[in-house]
């Protein structure tokens, strides 16, 4: 039993911290790439910005300024600082529901990134600054994992994480590979950067060796069963979490569960060769749209359900 508002907040904490981590990682990879003056570096900058929704092509050669804004600009709702502030505000609203250890990790991170020293810290060592945020977010997730009850609230938190992650990875793949004729990424260096953006370089190497080609990357990040940042892994988790929630909360015929099951099946039983032949664009767009629909359905099932149906007779 949990307040609907609390479940909603926990879900959003999950989404915001995942977003903050992804944006930090993309910026860090872009900043690293710009140290080289190669075609690959230029491609990396372009896809990084595109994946973050930065449409202004004029900024492609101002990676540093763009990263700085993405990290610290509070006015930009997609920035790391805005995501962390939103996550922390949600955590404050459910302070009674999350453990002190978990809260303190998030609060510390928030105090640091909004503190007076944040801009200097960033300017001193931008990739280092971003790496530290990522490491702190891992600490947050670790604290949550080891100190929160893995019950209802935990499931809403993880739902937020995985829905956000599936959408972010789908967006990254779309930017890189959806256009079959003129793919955005061709350079091996840039392809490695794409893997780094999904935190997938090392697991990929172990799976496919150093043979880096777009086809395998797409396969790995879309269909791998075990890698936590593959879309299939996320959809399987979403379906699993929703199955549990629906069962516990007596929402067996929930629309959210149906949608999640369908999306999971699409990825689980997809024919990788066929997807590759006809372009991944359609499937990737479907993943984004379906995740949005699941998000809506979760809200309608567990948070903003019509009262008439649940009043005692």
């Amino acid at each position, binding site marked *: 039993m949990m*307040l609907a508002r609390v479940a909603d907040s926990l879900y959003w904490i999950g989404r915001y911290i995942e977003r903050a981590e992804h944006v930090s990682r993309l910026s860090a990879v872009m900043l690293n790439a710009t140290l080289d003056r190669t075609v690959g570096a230029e491609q990396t900058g372009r896809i990084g910005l595109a994946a973050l929704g930065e449409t202004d092509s004029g900024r492609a050669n101002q990676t540093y300024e763009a990263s700085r804004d993405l990290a610290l600009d509070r006015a930009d709702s997609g920035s790391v600082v805005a995501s962390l502030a939103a996550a922390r505000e949600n955590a404050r609203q459910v302070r009674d529901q999350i453990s002190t250890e978990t809260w303190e990790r998030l609060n510390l991170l928030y105090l640091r990134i909004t503190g007076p020293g944040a801009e200097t810290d960033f300017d001193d060592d931008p990739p280092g600054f971003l790496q530290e945020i990522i490491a702190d977010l891992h600490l947050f997730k670790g604290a949550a994992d080891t100190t929160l009850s893995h019950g209802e609230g935990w499931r809403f938190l993880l739902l937020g994480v995985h829905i956000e992650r599936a959408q972010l990875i789908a967006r990254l793949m779309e930017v890189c590979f959806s256009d079959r004729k003129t793919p955005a990424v061709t350079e091996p260096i840039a392809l490695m950067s794409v893997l780094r953006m999904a935190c997938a370089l090392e697991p990929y190497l172990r799976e496919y060796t150093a043979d880096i080609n777009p086809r395998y990357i797409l396969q790995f990040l879309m269909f791998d069963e075990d890698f936590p940042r593959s879309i299939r892994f996320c959809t399987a988790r979403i379906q699993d979490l929703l199955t549990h929630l629906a069962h516990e909360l007596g929402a067996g015929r929930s629309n959210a569960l149906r949608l999640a099951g369908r999306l999971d099946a699409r990825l689980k039983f997809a024919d990788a060769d066929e997807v590759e032949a006809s372009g991944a664009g359609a499937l990737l767009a479907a993943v984004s749209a379906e995740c949005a629909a699941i998000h809506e359905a979760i809200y309608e099932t567990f948070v903003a359900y019509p009262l008439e149906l649940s009043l005692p007779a």
Partner: protein
Amino acid sequence: MSSNETVAKDVSLEEALPLTQAAYLPGRAYDEMIAAGGAVRPHYEVLQDRIASLGAEELGERQRTLERSFLLQGITFTVYGAESATERIIPTDLFPRIIPAKEWAVIEKGLTQRLRALNIFLGDIYGEQKILMDGVVPRDLVLGAASYRRDMQHLYVPHSAYANVCGSDLIRGEDGEFVVLEDNLRVPSGVSYMLANRDASRRTFPGVFRQAGVRPVERYPDLLLATLKSMASEWNSNPQIAVLTPGVYNSAYYEHAYLARLMGVPLVEGRDLVMHDNHVFMRTTSGLRRIDVIYRRVDDDFIDPLTFRRDSSLGAAGLFNAYRAGNVMICNAPGTGVADDKAVYVYVPDIIRYYLGEEAILPNVETFMCREPSQLSHVLANLDKLVVKAVGASGGYGMLVGPHASQAERDSFAEALKADPANYIAQPTIQLSTAPCLVDGRIEPRHVDLRPFILSGEKVVVTPGALTRVALRRGSLVVNSSQGGGSKDTWVLAEEAAARP
């Protein structure tokens, strides 16, 4: 035989507190640590020894650690500026204020007596009104008070426990006796600071804490839960309890979340509540769930727009009807504010005598009622010596501290007094007692008060601890956090600290 004071170590002040360049000068007020002759009071000796062994730098470091831990835990309040909002911690001092067992025993007995009488008083004025019939308290004073809720008339309140949670403000005058300055029976706050300060002082002075034998305060949350449960125990042995908060923008939000977390009950806002058929439900992920007892941290005025203020969106429409129907308990009961009204305060000793046949153990502060013409003229003639307070206001607002005010401020207050005398009371300016505080690397005396917390349900329980509020500006007598006050931990000792060999 030698008195306590001569038994205590006879050390010069510089030796006792090497940190202070100019010696620690307690001044005219009663000092919690240093007796009139300059000796350290016996119950402060252990702490004083430890302070003397630490340098300024180390004390400063401990103070900073303390502040960091408050910030990290999120024990903050938000200051809203023109554009941005900043979070600040309430200033907290690292030295505990220590109360010996014998003094505490009097406080505990006095507060228990006071709360018993006040709860009976509330039951009476919302019932038969015998005390008004007998003319002990003027009828118009009670029935005309803004905080009197006619809607509460003839409603059943279990155990006649109207004020389930009370935080009374005690002060020590120059003679060292505790007196009651005011009672807070509406939605008193500060208990989370009592608990957080304790957590901090255990870490700041672990050795001293152990040696001193401090009584624990950590049971407050479960005692509060038991008190709330006892309010529904007559018909439900396992009631669903919830804490009602105005939301995250309230300055005491941290405390609301803290209490909910430590009691293990949901923290609800008005928007989580649904009224149906005069029952209160909360909206959960699996449908609506009934609530039996609400510990509300929302003022009377705002809990139900249908009954009280219409423009309030903090409560829930229909909540009072559910209460009237007996389907939910609201704690504290609506309308308790009439008993902590600053004008009714004057009559509390009479109220105690009337219901219990006892004399008040803890006396009131001498108070002039400006509604009486003779007392008004006395107040007007002595504005530079008195503290004048508006009857309905709290939190240090609407208040004039005569000796510290300018002539212009006094003049304008005099006008307000003459225009509406019934709205004001006046009290002599009392030099609150002082306690040592770390201020800019020096130990200096600052004025303090004492807010113990009293729970009333089936039983009246006084938690052996309190919030000590500190007026951080030198010489200031106003301790309210809204007026730049801070706090420190309060140690209630288990037994009289034996004089050391």
